[in-house]
């Protein structure tokens, strides 16, 4: 049966199980929008900016594990998706982005609203396609979903010229066969056995778990490994939730704003087991001084992640869940260690570090400390909310003071660090989980980058909560200026900040404000109770900084702590 390209598009999406598409219309994509108008199975969520659509699809994907789908028009519609695509690409999030394109006959002519989005998005997609012929469309869409969701996941873009959506072709649904794309899932058995022996021999082993654990669904296997062998676990920013944050073996996050005990443990460790992480510079600090005493086992599905930044003794390419399943089996059946005995001294040392420098801040009952807000959110939600963040101090405080026990509850732009990510991502997550509490922990700078999505949240009756840690500054940048640029606050004071309560109200949402510590809990309680979109504006101590902090390029055990500024100065000099 002959179908138009637009009909083929819709049929393919249904076969891929797509229920929600995030998008924005325009001239060349109208054939598809017209069909969506009265389609019963697929709902289009109209955002107010294409960047918002991509972040929303990304939040949808992170919170469900299913690919997020985006539909936009050509030219500016397509170029507006780039930041969202790059954000997903850096964090390995599966997306399929459809962009309209001018008719094939006009491509290359600088036609109205033409942009070479295939060229522009090439370096930030896992793969991209220009569909030139309607008869290839279903194969391309099927391949796109396959590529986006398998191996190391990532965003895929399909450019759809207008005539391709209008012309007709027979519908086909061919099996995906891509001879040049064969991700490795099974780890090499010999390497895994090597790893098991090293684990048995090590005295001070440490697991660093990254986002790959979550992407592969390997949390259960990770927990089994850690508990069985009594190895403590530190989770990267992307790995939060891959291992229970409240577990006795959890050391929280390592790196630039990581815990004292995680960084200490890395530096003292004799064996690092890196799982689904890629040794980002925010984790390693000065690379030559990183984990000087440790042998390294590195498990990752992407061979390019291995030995990119650090030397590795046992590389294991494969899917985290499958590799850990085999590793656990080898450890249990072939190597019968007295694990508790082996680890006793090491765990005791870690306990000492935990007591030496716990993750804390100084509470005040005069001015709201941003950490206090995060702590209260954690307390009131009992750790059972989906938390997204913007970027900056808000993101780090959320990572430090909210404890994630389950995967896919934490949505943050790790690799790219995109301000404006959190609010649309929360909207996407709320669409996927209508009955869950979804909270964006935001900064007053970042929230203004996609604040227009208030309309999307209100129209779709989404009870998304936004907790703004309002410090009137681009706080994280201000922090660097205070510490490293002689307190010269060049263009980081925001001066004019809109009244967020009124902004929320103007869009038909609810706005609440707390200016004193005693108001924090009541505002949160009220905000969580209201079944509407709520902005909660917390006027915070603008001087507060994120600690501990490892200055960029320093070894990760050279940490700055919250101290009287004089002392901090001295310490800083010593580190530099």
């Amino acid at each position, binding site marked *: 049966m002959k179908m138009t390209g637009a009909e083929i598009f819709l049929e393919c999406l249904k076969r891929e199980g797509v229920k929600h598409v995030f998008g924005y219309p325009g001239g060349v994509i109208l054939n598809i929008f017209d069909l969506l108008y009265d389609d019963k199975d697929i709902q289009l969520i109209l955002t107010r900016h294409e960047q918002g659509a991509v972040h929303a699809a990304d939040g949808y994907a992170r919170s469900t594990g299913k690919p997020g789908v985006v539909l936009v028009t050509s030219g500016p519609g397509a170029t507006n998706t780039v930041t969202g695509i790059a954000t997903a690409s850096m964090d390995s999030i599966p997306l399929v982005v459809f962009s309209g394109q001018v008719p094939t006959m006009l491509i290359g002519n600088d036609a109205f609203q033409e942009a070479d989005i295939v060229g522009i998005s*090439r*370096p930030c997609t*896992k793969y991209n396609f220009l569909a030139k012929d309607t008869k290839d469309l279903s194969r391309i869409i099927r391949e796109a979903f396959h590529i986006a969701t398998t191996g190391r996941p990532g965003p895929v873009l399909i450019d759809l010229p207008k005539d391709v959506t209008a012309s007709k072709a027979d519908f086909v649904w061919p099996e995906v066969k891509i001879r040049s794309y064969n991700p490795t899932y099974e780890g090499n058995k010999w390497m895994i056995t090597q790893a098991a022996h090293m684990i048995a021999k090590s005295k001070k082993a440490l697991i660093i778990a990254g986002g790959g654990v979550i992407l592969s669904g390997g949390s259960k296997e990770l927990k089994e490994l850690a508990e069985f062998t009594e190895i403590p676990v530190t989770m990267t920013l992307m790995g939060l939730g891959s291992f229970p944050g409240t577990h006795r073996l959890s050391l929280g996050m390592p790196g630039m704003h990581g815990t004292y005990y995680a960084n200490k443990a890395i530096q003292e460790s004799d064996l690092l087991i890196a799982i689904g992480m890629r040794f980002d510079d925010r984790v390693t600090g000065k690379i030559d001084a990183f984990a000087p005493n440790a042998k390294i086992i590195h498990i990752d599905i992407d061979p390019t992640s291995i030995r990119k930044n650090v030397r590795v003794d046992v590389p294991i390419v494969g899917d985290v869940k499958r590799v850990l399943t085999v590793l656990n089996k080898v450890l249990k059946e072939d190597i019968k260690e007295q694990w508790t005995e082996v680890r006793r001294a090491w765990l005791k040392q870690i306990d000492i570090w935990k007591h030496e420098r716990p993750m804390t801040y100084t509470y005040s009952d005069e001015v709201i400390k941003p950490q206090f807000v995060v702590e209260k959110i954690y307390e009131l939600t009992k750790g059972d909310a989906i938390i997204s963040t913007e970027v900056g101090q808000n993101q780090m405080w959320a990572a430090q003071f909210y404890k994630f026990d389950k995967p896919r509850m934490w949505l943050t732009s790790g690799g790219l660090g995109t301000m404006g990510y959190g609010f649309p991502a929360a909207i996407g997550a709320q669409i996927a989980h209508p009955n869950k509490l979804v909270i964006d922990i935001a900064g007053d700078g970042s929230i203004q980058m996609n604040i227009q999505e208030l309309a999307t949240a209100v129209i779709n009756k989404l009870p998304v909560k936004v907790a703004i840690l309002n410090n009137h500054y681009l706080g994280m940048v201000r922090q660097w200026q205070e510490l490293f640029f002689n307190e010269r606050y060049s263009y980081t004071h925001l001066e004019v900040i809109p009244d967020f309560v009124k902004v929320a109200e103007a869009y038909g949402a609810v706005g609440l404000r707390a200016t004193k510590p005693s108001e924090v809990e009541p505002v949160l309680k009220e905000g969580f109770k209201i079944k509407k979109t709520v902005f909660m504006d917390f006027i915070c101590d603008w001087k507060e900084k994120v600690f501990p902090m490892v200055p960029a390029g320093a070894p990760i055990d050279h940490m700055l702590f919250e101290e009287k500024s004089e002392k901090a100065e001295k310490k800083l000099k010593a580190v530099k």
Partner: protein
Amino acid sequence: MRHTISLLVENRFGVLSRISGLFSGRGYNIESLSVGETIDPEISNMTIVTSGDDQIIEQITKQLNKLIDVIKVVDMTELDHVEREMVLIKVAPRQEDKAEVLRIAEIFRGRIVDSSQRTYTIEVTGDEKKIEALIELLRPMGIKEFVRTGKIAIAREGVKK
């Protein structure tokens, strides 16, 4: 160290820019690159000469392998292989040097593919050393311009290095 990397890639729209984009985006250098069809018209061969320490070369081959359109990556430097390059050199010698230019061309098994009153164009193939030696010999004779194809390489049969 320099490496000659041979690739089999899908002969598809945009594949060259995916490969060159990988090199420019990650700061690897390309000393030469040549592309051509293979026995299967759906597959192209690319020969890339690049340089870097072992870690960089390992990353380059892994990154190339990761590209969806790349079917096979072989670091020829690790194999016994044959490398060839072709050069076209246009020389404009003085009257008294003309005979010498022809003699040099002959020694290098070159062919004169074009000649005018003032110039000869010489075609020579060979490995890199030979081509460079030829250019050095002809330089004092007055090279107007030369064009090189970049290296191509093929593995030898049956022997392992």
